[in-house]
């Protein structure tokens, strides 16, 4: 760096550059907020979906699974599991855990009620409907 460029100039560029990009980011986020209802089909966000999300969170599902590609990479992607497996399979699968197959990865038994299982399925169904720009590339997630 040349002698003419002082640390004070560098500092001013830092403040100006940061302020500019913070504002630009905020503007983009505000615009994105207006698009989320349509892209996520917020009209279909029923109380059952909200309850299902709460179950998803309080059982720490994200600690093993990914949801729209985010989470842990130990168990299958569930953003499109509704399409891949269907509602009945999902419920039967959760009820059948753990498999106790020796050496295989195990999912805990959560002792959900039928109503809770329905809520979870509603949540996964709604999530499956989010416009994810065609991700994942195929049904396997």
């Amino acid at each position, binding site marked *: *760096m040349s002698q003419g*460029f*002082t*640390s004070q100039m*560098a*500092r001013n*560029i*830092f403040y100006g*550059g*940061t302020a500019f*990009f*913070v504002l*630009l*980011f905020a503007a*983009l*986020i505000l615009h*994105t907020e207006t*698009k*989320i209802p349509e*892209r*996520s089909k917020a009209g279909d*966000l029923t109380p059952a*979906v909200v309850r299902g*999300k*709460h179950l998803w*969170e*309080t*059982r*720490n*599902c*994200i*600690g*093993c699974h990914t949801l*729209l*590609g*985010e989470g*842990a*990479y*130990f*168990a*299958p*992607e569930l953003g499109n599991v509704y399409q891949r497996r269907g509602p009945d399979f999902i419920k039967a699968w959760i009820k059948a855990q*753990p498999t106790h*197959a*020796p*050496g*295989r*990865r*195990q999912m*805990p038994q959560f002792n959900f009620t039928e109503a809770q299982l329905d809520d979870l399925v509603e949540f996964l169904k*709604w999530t499956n409907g*989010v416009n*994810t*720009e065609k*991700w*994942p*590339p*195929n049904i*396997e*997630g």
Partner: protein
Amino acid sequence: MPNATLKYSSQAVAKLYFIAALGLFTGQIIFGLTLGLQYVIGDLFFPLIPFNIARMVHTNLLIVWLLFGFMGAAYYMIPEESETELYSPLLAKVLFWVFLVAGALTILGYLLVPYATLAEMTGNDLLATMGREFLEQPLPTKLGIVVVALGFLFNISMTVLKGRKTSVSLVLLMGLWGLALMFLFSFVNPSNLVRDKMYWWFVVHLWVEGTWELIMGAMLAFVLVKTTGVDREVIDKWLYVIITLALVTGILGTGHHFYFIGLPGYWQWVGSVFSALEPIPFFAMTMFAFNMVQRRRREHPNQAAVLWAVGTAVIGFLGAGLWGFIHTLSPVNYYTHGSQVTAAHGHLAFYGAYVLVVIAMISYAMPMLRGRQANPRRAQSVEMWSFWVMSVSMGVMVLALTGAGVLQIWLQRMPTTGAMSFMATQDQLVFFYWIRVAGGVGFLLGLLMYLSSFFVGAASHEQTDTAANMRVRQV
């Protein structure tokens, strides 16, 4: 006991923070090893410690020990930079115990109480914040973090206000305030998953690819000022250039997380363009470290600290820069998103950028906190070996995870028809996962070696050297 090596006696509070950080780091690695084994022996420790619990402990311990490291670093750096005693050493000690006890209770809660029960017990039904990756902490813990952070920021801000204001302390302060500010988004959990995910990244991305880079830059600059004796004007200039590049690329770089989670398509352009530039600040950091070491005006007796500092600049660039770049462009990320490639990047980036910068600071400060300029040569030699053992082991892990990721993408993501299922694919990755475990074992050995270096004394012929070191003038 008065410590003649410290310029300001209140810097001594940093020692507590550094010891806690290293203790929690060790816990993190033990749980990491457990996770690595669970990838190959699926039912290991089930149902006692299911994978999701072990992972939560692993990642939360990482965050907490890095925070301890940052706070310890700030308590050490700020008095020296401000040329005044810490505003309140007592507050620093009280907050240390509050944070340690809260952290320990949280980890015990994860391990001993079913997560759903823990959520119910801690008021998650009043304000649901739990069960989101890295933000799994119960509400009281999150509130505790805010209280500790505010107390801590008050303490160091007051110290800076009453003393000399340097670029290093201002950048550190901005980074720490930014960290605390962005953490407030952990209380935002909209019922719409898409919005939830968007604001979740405000904490996660704008921490590690935003505010934390300011903290890292300030810590690195401090260690380099002290160990190389290069003029502050030069170092300040570098520091501001680096953090400008970090925020200019990193803020809009958030877009690389917005490709496939339900947000508008334009984020693919914004995210790709700006995150493709994110390696630049890390590259600048590497140039910075090498440049300063080359232009050094003194031979600091603590050569181990210099190694960690250069190490963080280089491996930070590889992990955050290079391994970030390989999957950041949206057409690539379409296939790599949420695969083992992501895990590979996460490990190398955190290790290179944040683990190593905290160790660099500990390595520089701990001898001073123990009353000497630098550790005996034998201890430094063990420390430097531990750097190589940990770094090579991490390299093995990351290459194994990258290999696993590439194969996973090939089998599960690329085929348009007849793609392999997730679990069937995992069976094909076992070879890579075993190598990863081997890397993990090596890493633990490296860490134990590092910890042992604290107990290595001087060889008998070194006693005179050490006395000479004591007389080296501090910069």
